[in-house]
């Protein structure tokens, strides 16, 4: 890696200021994407601002209607949290499917959604549950948070502090991993809360998105059959040696169907 200034921030304020005042500041949560990127010399930040010393960013609180997960909460802790397992088992399952054990003990929710990797798992849950992203400056609804490939609504110096997940009646997540990297080649998160249905797809396109046609069909009839024959268009989907856009489009339907089946 190239040399950089390492800043271990003690408060959100300090971190935010350090990130904006540096010529090229980079916030680090778990570092599970940033550190490999630095080691490969694919990034050359002037400053790396470590958030691990900022108090109060990790932890899970349950309040009946919502599950609130602190930005620095590790995937392992979400995966094994009794509150999450009880209230939103699909979210606990999703966290357990991220990376490998080492990554799950270091990687964080805030880091994952701030990075917004097209093949990350968490964006599917945040969008698929209609969660609210809290930052040091404001709250952002999930529908307005994910903007494009590695792009979010976050502004310079804005730091995710927690994500509030509404507890759904039913939810399911089905992931088809890339055989090599085990990132989501296609991951579909479905949820039903009252009459509201959300279907969020990750891995398939440059950014997580909602599948409106499936949401409509599932609102009318919550059943795997309702989506089994909805063909998703291959237009605009990612294509690589592991999966063509056409194959990904096909997997969107299969994973959606299976996610609904899992949700019950």
């Amino acid at each position, binding site marked *: 890696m*190239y040399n950089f200034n390492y800043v271990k921030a003690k408060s959100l304020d300090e971190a935010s200021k350090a990130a904006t005042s540096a010529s090229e500041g980079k916030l680090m949560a778990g570092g599970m994407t940033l550190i490999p990127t630095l080691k*490969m*010399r694919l990034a050359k930040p002037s400053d790396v601002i470590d958030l691990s010393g900022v108090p109060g960013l990790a932890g899970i609180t349950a309040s009946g209607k919502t599950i609130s997960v602190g930005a620095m909460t590790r995937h392992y802790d979400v995966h094994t949290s009794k509150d999450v397992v009880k209230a939103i088992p699909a979210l606990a399952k999703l966290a357990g499917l991220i990376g490998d054990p080492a990554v799950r003990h270091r990687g964080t929710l805030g880091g994952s959604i701030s990075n917004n990797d097209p093949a990350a798992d968490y964006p599917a849950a945040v969008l698929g549950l209609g969660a609210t992203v809290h930052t040091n400056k404001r709250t952002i609804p999930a529908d307005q948070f994910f903007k494009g490939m590695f792009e979010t609504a976050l502004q310079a110096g804005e730091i995710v502090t927690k994500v509030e997940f509404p507890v759904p009646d039913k939810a399911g997540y089905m992931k*088809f991993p890339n*055989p*090599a*990297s085990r990132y989501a080649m296609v991951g579909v998160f479905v949820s039903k809360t009252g009459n509201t249905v959300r279907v969020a797809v990750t891995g398939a396109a440059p950014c997580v998105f909602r599948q409106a046609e499936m949401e409509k069909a599932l609102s009318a009839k919550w059943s795997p059959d309702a989506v089994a024959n909805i063909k998703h268009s291959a237009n605009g989907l990612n294509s*690589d*040696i*592991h*999966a*063509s856009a056409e*194959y990904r489009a*096909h*997997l969107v339907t*299969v994973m959606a169907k299976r996610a609904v089946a899992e949700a019950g």
Partner: protein
Amino acid sequence: MAAAAVGAAIRRREDARLLTGAGTYTDDINRPRQTYMQIVRSPHAHARVKKIDASKAAQAKGVVAVFTGADLEKDGVGGLPCGWLVKGKGGTAMIEPPHRVLATDKARHIGDPIAVVIADSREAARDAAELVAVDYEELPAVADMNAALKAGAPAVHDEAKDNLCYDWEIGDKAAVDAAFAKAAHVTKIALTNNRLVPNAMEPRAAIGEFDRATGGYTLYTTSQNPHVIRLLMGAFVLKIPESKLRVVAPDVGGGFGSKIYHYAEEALVTWAAKKIGRPVKWTADRSESFMSDAQGRDHITQCEIALDKNGTFLALRVFTRANMGGYLSTFGPAIPTYLYATLLAGLYRTPAIYCEVKAVFTNTVPVDAYRGAGRPEACYLLERIVENAARETGIDKAEIRRRNFIPQSAMPYQTPVALQYDSGDFVRNMEDALKAVDYAGYAKRKAESGKRGKLRGIGMATYIEACGIAPSAVAGALGARAGLYESAEVRFHPTGTVTVFTGSHQHGQGHETTFAQVVADGLGVPIDNIEIVHGDTDKIAFGMGTYGSRSIAVGGSAIVKAMDKVIAKGKRIAAHLMEASVEDVEFKDGKFSVAGTDKNVDIAQVAFAAYVPHNYPHEELEPGLDETAFYDPKNFTFPNGCHIAEIEIDPETGTVHIARFDAVDDFGKIINPMIVAGQVHGGVVQGIGQALLENCVYSTDGQLVTGSFNDYCMPRADDVPSFTVATNEVPCTHNPLGVKGCGEAGTIGAGAAVMNAVVDALSGLGISHLDMPATPQAVWRAIQNSKQGQAAARR
């Protein structure tokens, strides 16, 4: 007496060291005043090197020196040699273009080394390497063999305008043509054998050191054969006398063939160490391994088999194109010829076989032996076509093999493609495997899978491999530029312990355990009193190293020969001590005794007498008990077996799940069944990796698409089932231990078995072939194409 060590599942003695971080790998070694080397590698697959401006790099902080190919040429450094000369049709020698340590004229593959930066720290070397300005003129590249062989294709080497390295053949073409003319049925197949990246856990590393007091060099390197590196680098590249060059290959974390070869980096650190007067260290990162370790496989083949009306094989005809990459790696040319085409008889009595192999230069990383080396390619081809022939003729897949197997009674058996098999009970291996997998109950399991919407398939592969490489005279006649024997020294110490020096090298095989087991029984010494030393040219007389499943068959036999000499000398000492005639002295279980009496003396006492020779036959014997032996094998060994895979396909996603995997192997006499099972497990995983997961992909312009584990799919624990492995011990007839070798078998049998199972599962859809790897996308695509084809047919 103690229980026999040979045949016991003794835990690996090296594991405590290796698993607790106490091993010493090359990168663990640090020398005083050491520097670090970073290599500037070509980002282009094919480019003319017009100018190299190293001035900025040379002035960068911490930089000691920057060298280019011109500096090497000034010092008369030679090119990297090829260890095997293949002669093609009509005796035409293969084209052997120069392989410079640092490219001076052109870069011929992505990662081709162009310059080196040596600095006080790894980071400084890396930073400065980015400052070396290389002016490239990009040239059109050829990455795949079909493109390379097209008329007018860009030439990788001026010496081979048509990119053809050799056009080689084996077998009786006329006899094959005649057999095809009278065939009742002909089955054809066209397939590719996908390119693989070996990916040993430990990346390659090297440290060069020069002692100006003695004029001697030391090279620490991640090698499977340090003596071979000393020979090749010393004699051909740097011209250092062997007496002035020590090569140490300490603990090595896996090789799979990729650490056999002499690489540019070894020569660079050794040469530069003298040049700058400080030790030079280089350690590859994984990205470098992907573009600099020799890769494996990469064949395109058309094949047909002729059968009579009873399903008897009459003849086999094979046309193969084999990718050599941008340069000839040390043994590259030998793999698709003498380690491939000679195995095309397989386990069958096919009387006529013809194979033509065209070796092709492309703008890709060089290709050489990778676990199995030629034999997995032969097995895959043969077993795929045999299983397709069974399906086409309606003969059961086991039955067609049964009808064509070479019977045990026919041993030794001369194949039409040069090899003479010494032993094997092929029918028994298959019958045992069929029983293990419950072949009779398969239909029921398939129906049950069908109820769950899954497509089930069963596939089989029988294989034979030529291991114990190799009788030197035979290898020499076929173009090898080295002998392929092995050496061993058995040093019996005065107080009863034994050190064994072996020219074999362990990098995962467990020699410190198996070799000690052989010695424990051979000399009647407790296993804890035996040390196995390997991997250092200053300690070991000579060695040809470890590859081709040769260590126990060749290295183990050398140890037996050395032990025989120790015992022969011991008998004479014992005869003196017991005042008996040497003819009457017998040796058993560590004791010399006089036949027909209760007189005996322990081997430890004999050793003590040999080193403290107060009472000793000085007039006829020298003191000491230390013997060296070289063993040159009489023939190859022929491990063989039958592997059966049962798989389930999820037709919605194309995912292949391996439901079970059964292997029955004949490795001859087994020294340590636990280590053998481990070798089979690892081999099977690599075979499954090739069949379902691994694929090295280049873009048409020669960029490496799968340059990291993000895209190159290594097998993981959850990709494979628990295996059932069993052995049939049919001893090898021509080596003293009766052993055949087990290192590569799993890799050879597994891929073909799994692919046969995949095709079997899809055969109901009219699919008769699928290339490896059978990834979810590939399987799904095949199913879609078949559905579309059927729909079109209905219209």
